[in-house]
């Protein structure tokens, strides 16, 4: 069950008309390609995608799931939006309520285990190994955790465990953490346990219907067997402009743990079917990722360039992410920015952070409008 209803409000105008999981990433992908490809590569062929916020683009992007080989006779991908019942329309008020309202979907498959994922993170993970860990430990619930820097523990849900990795305590964004194992928002539940606790949670009027805030604490209180599954590897929440930019820049690092070129763990996406990129006689490209359909006439370095982008003559683009179909006009200078999809940056525009700042600029229609009115 992939939770893809997030709004991603800290991504500002990037998520004005699309949900966070649909935000473009890595020159070719959308964030949701990562969990969906992980499912396919882990041998999971039945995936429910829960959508709520701005679902149009996400729905049409997922389609029948053929890009991820999830167009199946049995199972496959099913988009699960909120729906109306005879008495009322029920919006998904929290992560748990989203799953609760789709108990029918789960009941029809009556699985042994349910994997709950969020559509907000960039990582490659074999969920099969997590399930093995779950079975070996005889767990009711397994939560995937990753070591985070100690000074950032106050941003995460922290799991305190015993020496057997059994979770003894859960602290949401603690000021003085006892541990640096953060929840990745990836859960494996025994289906019977999940079903029971979702129904209990629904009956509790005090609950905010959230896995982290309500379900996990309740399970701990009832002494259920919760285990942590330590994950090693690249994992990033790309919830802010800064972190989205950083994660894109990480891809340019040769030694990055997130290897998009690994044939054995392909990240699948809907392919745009555009002609090869054309680097003009005047163009230069170094330390960059460039996708199909681009035309590069300017100088591009340390930049991630999505499909269908044009960089015109004399333009100098550094340490930037240029999203699909954007155009960088003649003689522009762009540094440390994210250029929104389809934006036309007029000739001669200069966008770079002040000397003493490292702030990443989000270049959108509005930014361009403001620049022009000044």
């Amino acid at each position, binding site marked *: 069950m992939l939770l893809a209803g997030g709004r991603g409000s800290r991504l500002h105008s990037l998520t004005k008309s699309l949900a966070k999981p649909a935000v473009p990433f890595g020159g070719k992908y959308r964030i949701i390609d990562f969990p969906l490809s992980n499912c396919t590569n882990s041998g999971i062929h039945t995936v429910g995608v829960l959508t709520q916020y701005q679902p149009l683009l996400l729905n049409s992007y997922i389609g029948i799931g053929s890009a991820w080989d999830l167009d199946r006779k049995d199972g496959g991908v099913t988009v699960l939006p909120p729906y109306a019942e005879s008495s009322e329309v029920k919006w998904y008020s929290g992560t748990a309520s989203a799953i609760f309202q789709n108990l029918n979907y789960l009941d029809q498959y009556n699985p042994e285990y349910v994997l709950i994922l969020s559509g907000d993170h960039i990582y490659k993970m074999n969920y099969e190994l997590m399930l093995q860990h779950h079975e070996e430990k005889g767990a009711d619930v397994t939560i995937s955790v990753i070591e985070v820097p100690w000074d950032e523990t106050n941003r995460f849900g922290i799991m305190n465990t015993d020496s057997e990795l059994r979770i003894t305590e859960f602290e949401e964004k603690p000021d003085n953490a006892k541990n640096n194992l953060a929840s990745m928002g990836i859960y494996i539940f025994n289906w019977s346990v999940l079903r029971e606790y979702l129904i209990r949670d629904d009956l509790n009027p005090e609950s905010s219907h959230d896995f982290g805030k309500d379900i996990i604490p309740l399970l701990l209180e009832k002494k259920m067997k919760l285990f942590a599954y330590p994950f090693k590897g690249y994992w990033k929440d790309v919830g802010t402009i800064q972190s989205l930019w950083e994660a894109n820049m990480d891809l340019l690092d040769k030694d990055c743990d997130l290897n998009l070129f690994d044939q054995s763990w392909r990240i699948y996406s809907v392919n745009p079917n555009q*002609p090869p990129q*054309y680097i003009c006689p005047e163009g230069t*490209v170094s330390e960059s990722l460039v996708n199909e359909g681009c035309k590069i006439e300017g100088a591009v370095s340390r930049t991630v360039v999505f499909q269908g982008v044009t960089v015109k003559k004399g333009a100098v683009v550094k340490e930037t992410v240029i999203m699909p179909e954007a155009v960088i006009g003649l003689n522009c200078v762009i540094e440390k920015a994210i250029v929104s999809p389809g934006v036309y940056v007029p000739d001669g525009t200069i966008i770079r952070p002040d000397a003493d700042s490292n702030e990443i600029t989000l270049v959108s229609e509005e930014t361009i409008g403001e620049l022009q009115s000044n």
Partner: protein
Amino acid sequence: MNKRLLGVIDATTVHEDLEDLSLHRSVAAIPFGGRYRLIDFILSNLVNSGIESVAIFPKYQYRSLMDHLGSGRNWDLNRKRDGLFFFPASNTGNHYTGIGTLDHFADNIDYFERSTQDYAIIANSYTVFNMDFQPLLDWHIQSGCDITEVQKNGKSLGIYLVEKALLMDLIKTRNETGYFNMRDAARDTSSQFQLCYYDYKGYAVMVDSIVNYFNVSMDLLKPEVWKELFPKDRPILTKVKDEPPTRYEVDASVKNSMVANGGVIEGTVENSIIGRGVKIGKGTVVRNCIIMQKTQIKENCLLESVIVDKDARIEAGTVITAPADAPAVIRKGTVQGVGSKS
């Protein structure tokens, strides 16, 4: 939607001059332009003209062609009604010759009988162009033509338009008329039919030799040709791969080149077409070359005017140069240079 037209692609042609590239594949399946196969042009043109039923008549070495086309999904031809049809020669002893061999059609006459379209386009599989067939059909009907041959500067482009009923007559009476193929029918000046010649003004080249293949590939680097062949509203469709974007390393220097996805470029590339998943090592210079998919060129090589077929490996320090008017060809899957056993 173009409910009136059938698309028929003759993929039987063998060009001896293209042998180095067509040992393991039909001419239709020769890689082109970094990510395409030659057949993608005619197939996409048919689909972009709204044609929903396309029949492919292959003969030799069609494994790679079938692998490429699959169910036709990438061209939106995986349909319940109509869609993509595949009619390999039923007997390899048949000596089908020319484009639109009537014998080959006769073996599959059911296809023509069952289809509901009134007209058929019969085309070769190796012309590089981006053409809308709707104006051709309108012209054919308005001019009262029976058989229309598409030409470029007075030379045949190996593309014919004919009413399906007449095509079926031609198939059935081939032994009496002595017409072996569509060209025979379109060129018989004594025939009772109204023969027409439609002059196509756009870019169109039939790829029938290595030199010609090389030159047409290099034409892609001309912005006006690129623009005409790959307009956004009439895309050339192909089998999609899930390659990541191409990665340019610190020392990469790429000028006037087309590069497909999935590559890693550390060296210098000039005036070249680089296929999907190609690796070009540090210190290597690739100039006026066509490098096909998944080929690896190691460090400190020099390649000039070379066509390197798929899956080849050029070992470090190898120098291969040829004159621009007679490009060298490195065959598929071979290893060149130090330690090679070619």
